[in-house]
């Protein structure tokens, strides 16, 4: 299935797992950017900075205090819809994670556990 045509956005896209062109898991569709009239999907929004806006208002303020404000390019990333290759059981991107600024949390250089002696 190519990434075009009508889909049930909330049913099939929101909260889905995102994988880069090499199949690496690099985050989830935390929000979706719609623009135009009629609205079309223009980008996927990814990052922990977006979590508070997914919570009920009473909890959002607390969550905002924990996660800090949305900083675009840092804890909130915009992945243009053109970068989406395929929608299967995951949202597959056309590029590698690094080119889009994704998956930095799983950069092995940040983690001592990479030295653990099992592959």
């Amino acid at each position: 299935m190519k990434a075009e045509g009508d889909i049930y956005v909330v049913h099939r896209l929101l909260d889905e797992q995102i994988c880069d062109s090499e199949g690496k898991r690099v985050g989830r569709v935390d929000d979706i950017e719609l623009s135009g009239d009629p609205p079309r999907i223009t980008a996927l929004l990814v990052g922990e900075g977006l979590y508070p806006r997914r919570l009920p208002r009473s909890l959002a303020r607390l969550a905002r205090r924990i996660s800090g404000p949305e900083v675009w390019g840092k804890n909130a990333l915009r992945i243009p819809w053109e970068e989406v290759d395929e929608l299967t059981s995951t949202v597959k991107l056309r590029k590698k994670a690094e080119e889009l600024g994704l998956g930095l949390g799983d950069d092995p250089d940040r983690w001592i556990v990479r030295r653990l002696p099992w592959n």
Partner: protein
Amino acid sequence: MRAILKIALGIIAAIGGFLDIGDLVFTTQAGALFRYDLLWAVVLGVVGIAVYAEMSGRVAAVSGRPVFDVIRMRMGFGMGLAALIASTIVNVLTLAAELGGIAIVLELLFDAPYSMFVVAAAIALVGIVALLPFGGIERFFGYGGLLLLVVVATVFHQNPDWGEVGRGFIPSIDSSTLYLYFVVGVFAAALMPYEVHFYSSGAIEERWTEENLKENRLNAIVGYGVGGILAVGLVIVSGFLFHPLGVEPDNLGTVALPMQGAFGETGLLLALGGMLFCVGGAAIDSSFAASYNLAQFLGWEWGRYQGPRKAPRFTASWLVFLLLGIAIAQSGINPVDITEYSVVLAVVALPLTYLPVLLIAGDRSFMDRYANGRVASFLGWLYFAVIVVLALAAIPLLLATNAGGG
């Protein structure tokens, strides 16, 4: 032929891996307090876990989605987060109980203090995870758990009044709150949510596809079915030996005593050895479940097959959960008490795990021709209703009975 052998080996491991500390504790206590009256609740629980394990394995194999993928997709971020928090608390408590359980068994087998064994157990688990591939880890504990087949031999050796045993399989409701508490406990111990978190993620670890669906079904029906016989056996041997004496087991070691009564030291060693593998395997399953859930909910790379280099956050979170488990197990709280709290709290978390699985498994847009048929659908919703009723009853019963303490 080799394919059949491989499937058979997997099923045998499922049999041996069926029991965990919750099953050991609740079945033995149920037998001691109510003799064979709660056997029906054990069967109810075993069928329930088979239904949901089959469903979650099928969803994972067909749609490529493990349970927490499904939870976040169907429940959304907010309710999904609630499910994540509840599941994580239950999984870490379960892990602590299993680590404590390993330490108690080791304490009985070798003469050294409990606290030393908690740490030794955790180090041994890290070593096993490091040395064995995913399938090997499962089989190591699964085969070892088969030592508990000595329970079945003990049943025949005791030769109980079979008519009375048979009547235990007919559901009966006793109005005492303690009885109801044990109905919930025995049922919930069989349906602990970490089992489906682990099972479905394991299906992804082992790269299951539609071709593994037969294996999945056999695992659920034969593996869990025969595993359930061990749970039934534990109720019977405990009911036969402890009920007439009025003993109330509050120590994990008591679980093994009927086997000693029947076969002397050999029986005792087989029982303790089997318990060690079962509880050790469950410590792996519950700790992995905690990390699988976190990584899947947040979209991190995950999996034992990825190793620490490719999935560092997943690996680090596993080690953190293990440390938390050690800390709780070392706190001096009796692991049997931790077990009871984790099992009863698990009932409350169960609907949040099982509803999304049920919704996706029945959704043809994800599952195509592998969606739930009439039988799976009927059983799934029936059990969901049972789970919701028990979830509502669990906390009041826990408080009313002082966690089964009467």
